C-alpha cells in the first residue's frame, strides 16, 4: 500500500467503515511501517479528540429575547393576511365595485351613454403597421444644408484648439 492509498482509505478505516479485511490489514501494516503516515494519523487522532472535547457554546441571553421578538413580529404580520381574511376583503371590494358600476348605469344612464360614445377606437389589426402605411417626413439635401449652416466654422475651430 502506498501513502496515497493509505490516505484514501484511512478516513473510512477510522470510522470502521472499511469492510474488506484485507484492506484493513493493509492499512494497519502501512501505519506500522510508514513514520510519515503514522505521524499524520497521530496528529489526526489528537486533534479530533481535542476538537470533540471543546466546550459547547451556550446561547447568549439576547438570543432568546431577540428570537421571541422576531417570532412575534412574524405572527403579527402573518395573521392579518391569513387566506380567509384576505379572501373576504377581496370579495367585499369586488362587490362594492360592481355595486358602484350598477348604480352609475341605472341612476345616471346619460353618463354611461357619453362614456360609451367617446370610447377610444382600438386598433384590432393583428400586425404592426408596415412602414409603407406611415408617412415619413421628407429628408432632403436642403435640410442638411440648413443644419450645416447653423454651425459657424470659427466656433468649431475654437472647440478643437
Amino acid at each position, binding site marked *: 500500500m502506498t501513502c496515497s492509498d493509505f490516505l484514501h482509505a484511512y478516513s473510512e478505516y477510522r470510522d470502521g467503515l472499511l469492510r474488506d479485511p484485507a484492506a484493513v490489514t493493509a492499512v494497519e501494516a502501512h501505519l506500522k511501517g510508514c513514520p510519515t503516515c503514522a505521524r499524520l494519523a497521530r496528529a489526526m487522532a489528537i*486533534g479530533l479528540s481535542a476538537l470533540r472535547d471543546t466546550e459547547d457554546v451556550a446561547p447568549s441571553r439576547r438570543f*432568546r429575547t431577540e*428570537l421571541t421578538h422576531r417570532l412575534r413580529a412574524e405572527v403579527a404580520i402573518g395573521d392579518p393576511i391569513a387566506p380567509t381574511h384576505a379572501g373576504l376583503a377581496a370579495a367585499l371590494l369586488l362587490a362594492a365595485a360592481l355595486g358602484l358600476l350598477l348604480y352609475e348605469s341605472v341612476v345616471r344612464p346619460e353618463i354611461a351613454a357619453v362614456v360609451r360614445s367617446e370610447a377610444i377606437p382600438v386598433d384590432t389589426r393583428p400586425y404592426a403597421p408596415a412602414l409603407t402605411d406611415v408617412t415619413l417626413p421628407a429628408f432632403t439635401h436642403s435640410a442638411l444644408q440648413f443644419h450645416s449652416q447653423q454651425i459657424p466654422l470659427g466656433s468649431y475651430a475654437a472647440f478643437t484648439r
Partner: protein
Amino acid sequence: MTIASAAPRPLGTAALTTLGDSEVVASYLAGERRAFDVLVDRYQRRLINFVYRTIGDRERAEDLVQEVFIRVHRHLHRFDQTKKFSTWIYTIASNLAKNELRNRSRNPLVLFQTIRKDSDQDSRPLQFEDRHTRPDDLFRKRHLRELVDWAVTRLPEHHRIVFVLRELEGKTYEEIAEITDCNLGTVKSRLNRARARFAQVIGPWMD
C-alpha cells in the same frame, strides 16, 4: 359524549418535551403554539455550535440561528413529515452558514471584524479551570483547543461543513449527504480530504 370532550386536550409543556420531533411538529401544526418553543429549546444550542464551528464567529452564528428558526416557523406547514426534522433544520442552517462563508470571501471587512474579536479574546487573563492541573498543562490544553479551532477555519468551505457535521455533530454519512445535498461518495471524499488537511495543519504543533 359532547363535542367539547371529543376534542384533543392540549398537552402541557412538560408532556411536549417528552415527544419526538415529528410529534412536536404535528402538535404545533395542530395549533399548539408552545410546541415551537420546545423545538427551539431542543435545537438552539446544537445549531449555534454547528454554525459557530463552521463560520468561526459566535455573534453572527446566533443571528443566523435566529434566521433558521424564523424560516422553520415560516415554512413548517410545508415540511414533509415523513422526513426527519433534524435533517431539515440542519439543512437550513448549513445553507445559511454556506452563504455566510461565501459572502465573507467577497467582503474582507468581515475578516477584519473577526480578527479584532480574536484579539479581544486574547487579552483576557488565563483562567484556571481545574485547580489540580498544573499551569503548563492548562496552557497546553488551551493552546491545543485554540489550535484545533483555528485548523477548522483553514478548511475549505464545502469540506468544513462536512467535517463539522461528522466530527462535532456526530451525523452519519447518509445524514450528511442529505443535509449537504451531495451523494455518499462526495461526502466520503470531502471528509477524507478535510481530515487529512486538518491533520496537516496541526501536525507541526503535535511534535
